[in-house]
């Protein structure tokens, strides 16, 4: 806790920003001094771990989006363990459960108010899968390509996640036409249903 014995220094900052912070401080019952201290402490702490405040706010937004999308945050190894057990016990049912979760998530975006539901889905999903070093979803001319690489995925988790993605793509009106799955690697290609059904 800061006391009056703390040596103080002044710095020069943009007036509009200081005025705005001053209003915020007033609304929250803080002094400008206290809020500026908190902001600086946070900025320094972030910098120590090589991130910045912008990144922290973005991540906070990811967490909020994940919450709204019905995702939970937990230990990856536990998810894998449970996926393994469930898949070994009841393969079809496990695949169905993940597929349905994918459908549900995609429908949430598709029926929402966002301008481009697929873009919003893609943005969030890429953010939620921070545990996969490589996660790309590309959409072009009625085709969607998904590529995921994570050496940590178990075989069962890889298969189940594929089912989840297929469910989501299906809900967006895309039919999976090719897939390559091996432990820790997923590659999917899906076409808009009308185009996939059309004769070559």
């Amino acid at each position, binding site marked *: 806790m800061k006391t009056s014995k703390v*040596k*103080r220094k*002044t*710095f*020069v*900052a*943009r*007036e509009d920003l*200081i*005025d*705005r*912070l001053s209003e*915020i401080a007033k609304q929250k019952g803080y002094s*400008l*001094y206290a*809020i*500026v*201290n*908190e*902001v*600086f*402490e*946070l*900025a320094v702490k972030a*910098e120590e*771990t090589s991130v*910045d*405040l912008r990144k*922290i*706010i973005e*991540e*906070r937004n990811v*967490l909020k989006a994940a*919450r709204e*999308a*019905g*995702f*939970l*945050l*937990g*230990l*990856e*190894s*536990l*998810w894998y*363990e*449970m996926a393994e*057990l*469930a898949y*070994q*016990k009841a393969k079809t049912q*496990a695949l169905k*459960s993940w597929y*349905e*979760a994918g459908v549900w998530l995609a429908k949430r975006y598709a029926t929402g108010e966002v301008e481009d539901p697929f873009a919003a889905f893609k943005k969030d999903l890429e953010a*939620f*899968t*921070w*545990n996969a070093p490589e996660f790309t979803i590309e959409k072009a001319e009625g085709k969607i390509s998904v590529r995921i690489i994570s050496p940590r995925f178990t075989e069962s988790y890889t298969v189940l996640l594929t089912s*989840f993605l297929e469910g989501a793509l299906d809900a967006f009106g895309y039919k999976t036409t090719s897939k390559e799955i091996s432990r820790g690697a997923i590659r999917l290609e899906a076409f808009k249903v009308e185009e996939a059904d059309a004769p070559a």
Partner: protein
Amino acid sequence: MPQPKGKKLVYVPEDLLEEVAKASRGRGETISKFVEEALKQAVRANKAGYHPQQLAEYFEVMQAQKVLGGAFVPLEVLNYLTNKACQEEKEQLSAKWYESGKWHGKYLKEKFENPTQAFKAFLEASRWDLNEVEIKKEGEKVKVRCVSPLLTTEATELLAKFIEGAMHSIGYQTQKTDCLRGMIVIKFK
């Protein structure tokens, strides 16, 4: 033509300003640029409903999640997996959750001055399926209470094991456990 922006003088603790200077040098920026960006982001955060202090707590929790290997999973899928896996290997699964809790607890104890408070923040930030998370210290005793109507019986039991593991690592021993679907009350000493 845009008007040049006015400037104001603001007081901060000397040592904090030195840290800011060091951080700005680390990023290869001038202090004024670093400060301006920090203030801009603070205003932006406020618009999104986040206070700097909350962001700081959140940041620490997220750092912990990343270090410990946190991953997102749909709640429905988690419930399915929990129920299915519990039918098969309940004991084994309980042990895994307990071990995972111990690992989290160890990390929090190392990293935070007040690990029980950090654990509460950790649960609140990551387990938003919990409506209530209470960690109350009464002398040498600590009561942990979590409530969620979304938890299945199996999920409740596994979460209780996780909490026990974490609290044991932080340095407490279980005195009494009350666990029923959607509610966990554990007393530690």
